[in-house]
């Protein structure tokens, strides 16, 4: 078990390191030195400043040296300084990351808290009108683009109920109520796809288990239908759990768009603004941190498998 955890953790680190190398090389291999272009484009920058900055950033060094410096600095949590605000990238990200994580967790809660009951209901009443209706909702749910759903929610809540989210974002520390109200709609828009996917997966996994010889055995032993169902649910949670891990990527990606629609100052907003301003140190830092969060969550999901399914022994 300990060896398995260690192996998975080391592999996660390797992937994060590879992400770091990937973004660095991609940036440098783009034709026409992207960093120089960006510096020269910015208004009010003189030639000496360009040269000075290039030297300061180590751009006069050979590529491999630059890569080595970048990776070792990144390992220490140092992604350089923003071109735009002159603040350390790490500080900028540290400032924004909690907001994005809050949104992500809320969206995940929407997915799981709505998706699991819907899936159970659908399977328990297989082929009823309720089941059919829920299945249609599920397929629609995975097909609706979250940004469109977000726009519709804002508009029609405003048009029909005269309600719109707060204009100014407040951190949970400043005003928890206002913060939660602000986050509710994007979390809902973001969580619907996950909800639908989980409901679909749980329904089919549960029906599969209910047809399996194992359930026949439980029935043959004289268990009540309720007990049979409980047994089956426990056994159908593994694929659902896998799906939750996969949803992390989709939800993390979705935060980028929904933060920009709802004016939430999270990492998504940061990377989006930085991309438009060609603030490369910030973009690089954000991509690496997104990758690290994704890898970390999936590592946790992997390790939790054993809790749900005792058959998995980490061989």
């Amino acid at each position, binding site marked *: 078990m300990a060896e398995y955890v260690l192996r998975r953790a080391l592999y996660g680190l*390797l*992937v*994060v390191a*590879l*992400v770091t190398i*990937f*973004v660095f090389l*991609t*940036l440098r291999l*783009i034709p026409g030195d*992207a960093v120089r272009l960006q510096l020269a484009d910015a208004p009010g920058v003189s030639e000496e400043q360009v040269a000075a900055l290039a030297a300061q950033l180590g751009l006069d060094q050979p590529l491999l040296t630059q890569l080595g410096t970048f990776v070792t600095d990144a390992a220490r949590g140092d992604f350089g300084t923003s071109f735009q605000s002159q603040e350390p990238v790490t500080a900028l990200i540290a400032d924004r990351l909690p907001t994005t994580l809050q949104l992500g967790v809320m969206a995940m809660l929407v997915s799981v808290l709505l998706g699991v009951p819907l899936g159970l209901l659908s399977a328990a009443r297989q082929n009823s009108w309720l089941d059919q209706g829920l299945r249609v909702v599920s*397929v*629609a749910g*995975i*097909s*609706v*683009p979250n*940004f*469109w759903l977000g*726009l*519709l929610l*804002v*508009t*029609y809540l*405003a*048009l029909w109920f005269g309600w719109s989210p707060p204009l100014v974002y407040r951190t949970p520390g400043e005003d928890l109520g206002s913060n939660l109200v602000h986050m509710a709609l994007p979390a809902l828009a973001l969580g619907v796809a996950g909800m639908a996917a989980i409901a679909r*997966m749980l329904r*089919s*996994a549960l*029906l*599969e288990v209910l047809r399996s010889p194992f359930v026949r055995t439980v029935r043959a032993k004289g268990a009540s239908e309720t007990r049979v169902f409980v047994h089956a649910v426990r056994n159908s949670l593994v*694929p659902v759990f896998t799906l939750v891990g996969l949803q992390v*990527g*989709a939800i*993390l*990606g*979705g935060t*980028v*768009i929904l933060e*920009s*629609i709802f004016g939430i100052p999270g990492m998504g907003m940061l*990377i*989006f603004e930085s*991309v*438009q301003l*060609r603030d490369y140190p910030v*973009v690089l830092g*954000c*991509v690496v941190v*997104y*990758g690290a969060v*994704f*890898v970390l969550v999936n590592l946790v999901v992997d390790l939790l498998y054993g809790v749900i399914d005792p058959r998995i022994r980490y061989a």
Partner: protein
Amino acid sequence: MTEIVADRVPVARRTARRGLRHLIRTQPLGVVALALIALFVLAAVLAPVLAPFDPVAQHRESFQEPPSAQFLMGTDDLGRDIFSRVLYGARTSLLVSVATLTAGGIIGIVIGVASGYFGGSALDTALQRVMDTLMAIPGIVLLLFVAALLGPSVRNTVIALSLLVIPSFNRVARGEMLRIREELYIESARASGCSTWRILRRHGLPNLLAPLLVVTSLLFAIVIIAESALSFLGIGTPPPTPSWGAMLSEGSRYMEIAPWMVVFPGGILTVAVLAFNLLGDALRDFFDPKQQIR
């Protein structure tokens, strides 16, 4: 043996025809999805014929008009006909997704098949490290990163989206190939003296076809959304080329006064995505009725 007449029809053709009838009976939703997709493709191909107006023509006397007999889906803030723009948007969407799935599909499948057939080798390990790296970056973030580096254009959108789909194709192709290579008929082919290349071509790819069709359909849905998301963020298809995402982005500023600017493009986008999701589901059930889990 009893159906003497039927025996004269070549078996392959007979099973194909029976398969089609079977598909209609058992997968009605799949057939609906196919019809919707056919409509989508027709709209895209015939946009210049079907569109009542030039998609970029600005009708000065009618800004943000609600849907009417003249403008079926209303007009936008510059007085352009939304219906025509939606048709041309389908064109952009289809072009980008077909190009992406062709390029990304070929690359991803080649990587996955090679990796799976030589599973456990150094080649497999190296390729899968790269795939894990691409998969660790959330889709939109990867798209933002690549699109930002390359600048907004249709070609660059395709490149960025290809990077998104390659790992998915790879995963399916590799997984299936790992299973197929353990099949007895692969060993049997080797014993007959077939070369590796011949085995991959004759037994590998054809047996991969069903799962790859399913994943292609589902990825179509994902790519259509992702293309819109990129245009929505203003880093995908550059204006004035009509694209659904850009239309949503323009409309989002006038949601309260001209909701049709957002409702129609978004609705059509959702229906297109839905059709590909339904088709993917139907194909999966059709190819393997027992295994409906994934």
